[in-house]
């Protein structure tokens, strides 16, 4: 008990690696820049993580069900552009439900392909990443989208407003996380998601309609994307049509960082929220210590690799494998 063997240390590193690495980052950043842990900065990080976070909530369902969703970034661009365009055409009160309906249709289409036609989710959503991007560009004619009368609309409330001193994006993120957290942990549907991801065949043999569960996961993911698009559009009341580009990887990184297995069957909403925050704080910390913004792209990749490695390491109980 008194001394730990090398194997024990390996096991602890493998199990708690992400938290240890996170702690090291936090301490490092705080030493490098005392502003890092200031309330303003912390609030700022959470606020800027909200859009990513909302998307990660939906993707958590998809990943636990044993699939991937790489289309969320370009789908978010689509939602943002659509709602901004419709805002001036039919007014915000109609634009929002119309945008949600269109985004949910995209989610349902993916869900149909992956769930009912049993196509590989990587291929389907990678293809949709490109297809939806094309759809957005076609819709917008390649133009960026801006609300003409920025002063005279209440549409900004979702991205810029605040209640009780807390920014609305954070409130939306927290509320949606709570809601979906309960759906996943407490409802029969949530249980089925875990079963389908854990062992789809056994779930089918237990009478669970696997295709429907997968379908619904993609619809939920699309709902989260639409919400993220709403916040994004509302925040700046105008947008480039590539606003969500690359976010799919950040989202996936956050979900995996939280500890959801890419093989499906494990993960929680709470852990995803933690993953989102870890990613947000690390990216923020890198800026504060004076690194260029573009370094983030590389760092995000490193974090994904680290997370996937530690996930596998935790399963085999050690960092290295004896079997090549």
């Amino acid at each position, binding site marked *: 008990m008194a001394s730990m063997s090398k194997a024990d240390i390996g096991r602890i590193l493998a199990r708690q690696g992400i938290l240890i690495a996170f702690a090291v980052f936090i301490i490092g950043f705080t030493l490098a820049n005392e502003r890092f842990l200031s309330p303003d900065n912390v609030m700022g990080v959470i606020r800027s993580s909200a859009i990513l976070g909302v998307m990660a909530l939906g993707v958590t369902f998809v990943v636990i069900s044993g699939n991937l969703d790489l289309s969320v970034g370009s789908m978010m661009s689509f939602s943002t552009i659509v709602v901004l365009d419709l805002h001036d055409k039919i007014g915000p009160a109609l634009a929002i439900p119309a945008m949600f309906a269109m985004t949910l249709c995209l989610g349902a289409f993916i869900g149909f392909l992956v769930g009912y036609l049993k196509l590989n989710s990587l291929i389907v959503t990678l293809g949709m990443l490109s297809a939806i991007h094309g759809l957005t560009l076609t819709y917008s004619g390649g133009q960026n989208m801006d609300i003409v009368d920025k002063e005279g609309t209440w549409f900004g409330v979702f991205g810029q407003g605040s209640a009780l001193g807390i920014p609305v994006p954070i409130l939306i993120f927290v509320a949606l996380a709570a809601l979906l957290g309960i759906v996943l942990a407490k*409802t029969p549907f949530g*249980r089925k998601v875990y079963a389908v991801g854990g*062992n789809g065949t*056994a779930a*089918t*043999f*237990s009478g*669970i309609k696997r295709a429907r569960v997968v379908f619904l996961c993609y619809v939920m993911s699309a709902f989260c994307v639409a919400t993220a698009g709403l916040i994004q559009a509302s925040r700046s009341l105008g947008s480039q049509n590539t606003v969500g580009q690359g976010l799919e990887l950040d989202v996936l990184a956050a979900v995996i960082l939280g500890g959801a297995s890419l093989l499906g*069957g494990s993960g929680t909403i709470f852990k995803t929220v933690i993953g989102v925050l870890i990613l947000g704080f690390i990216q923020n910390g890198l800026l504060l210590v004076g690194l260029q913004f573009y370094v983030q792209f590389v760092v995000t990749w490193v974090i994904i690799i680290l997370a996937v490695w530690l996930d596998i390491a935790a399963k085999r109980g050690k960092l290295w494998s*004896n079997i090549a």
Partner: protein
Amino acid sequence: MTDKTPALRLEGIVKTFPGVRALDGVSFSVMPGEVHALMGENGAGKSTLMKVLGGIYQPEEGQIIVEEMPTVMTSPLQAKSKGIVFIHQELSLAEELTVAENIYLGELPRRSFGRVDWAKLYAQTDAILEKLKVGFNAKTIVGDLSIANQQMVEIARALTVDAKAVIFDEPTASLTDAEKVVLFDVISDLQSQGVGIIYISHRMEEIFKITDRISVLRDGSYRGTLETRATNEEEVTQLMIGRALDLSRNVSHHEMGDIALEVRGLSCGDLFKDVSFEVRRGEVLGFYGLVGAGRTEIAETLFGLRDPSAGTILLDGEEVRISSPADAIGKGISLVPEDRKGQGLVLGMNCRDNMTLPQVGNLSSGPFVATGAETDIFEKYKEKLDIRTPGWKQTVGNLSGGNQQKIVIGKWLSMHPKVLIVDEPTRGIDVGSKSEIHNLIRELAAQGYAVIVVSSEMPEVLHVSDRIVAMFSGKVMRTFTSEEVTEENLIQAISGIAATDKVA
């Protein structure tokens, strides 16, 4: 045999895991040319011992001695270089490659510039295959071979080194009777070449047919070695489980109820044709036949996993169409599937959630899962079926095979099905739990369930069934009552010999 040097000797092997003494001073030895059975219930330490032997685990105490040379094993590859070769239950072959490439994978013979010396490769491989007397050659693609022949490839791989000891881990699990004969011939060839064989199996018949000595492990410790010729199944079983086992024919009789399920002229493509039978409440109907006879396919059709091409299914006298497992479950047909880990359980989920999975949608209070009701169901069936687990939170993957199977059975019992189909009820389950499961099936029938048992083990079907449907190549050859059936007429029926025309 004592005058010779053992091919492989293990001495006082101790291996502990946190909280468990998995191996407690295990010693045994294999002589050259000997087939030595290693037996024990699941959890007795067989696989841990093999992992120690293969260098995957390092023992805390004890020695591995290969031909009088103490050896430290660091990996399966290194063990192979010392002449210790494993033939695993699960095959590890590259299906897209040829037999020759698989056999010499990683050590292909080379010519200049690193080019593969194909001529030499195929010649060497064919030489080995000739020794095994198999019906395929070096250039055959492994994926095109039957499971049995793929196993031969694994064995051929073992023969590329100067093997001192070959360990077979449940080699016959997926073999037909004819294929077993070929395997046993190969083992006997190896034996005559002076190779020591460790043979791990649960199947007594085989053990008594081919082994010279039997060593038994129980709870991680060595319980003794018996000369196969001088012992019998009862003695071995007793040593394994520490008590006597009742494998006699089922004799208990109870009242039968109405016909619960009737099947008329059911066909499914080429898989099975014109199958008719009925099961009553309180009856166990056994299905017996060779692999590929269509038994499992019938079970799958009744459970909505396959669409029948013809025929009718009647539940309680009413014709039904079953379109999916969900549909079957709703109508009262449940299936304990053949592949427990692949089809029966979500291994990463806890015991309770696995058990209540099919009814989780109905067990709700408002929008939420009624976890209290779930726990009640679990506790009830845990007690009823004597499921040994520390609690409902335990991950199912950590339970022994027998307890896992009870979870699957409990899953369906808690939904009170009209018909319970059990496909291979005791596959991969140790002897002790086996008889518990058999008793359970009898008890369920006594409680009024209509039970269908599909099995490829004759003693099992004979033991649990009230009537037995004998199948051959997709057809029902004959249905026996327990009074009529004998091992002989059952074997004749499932081999396609028209037993009905003969007087037994």
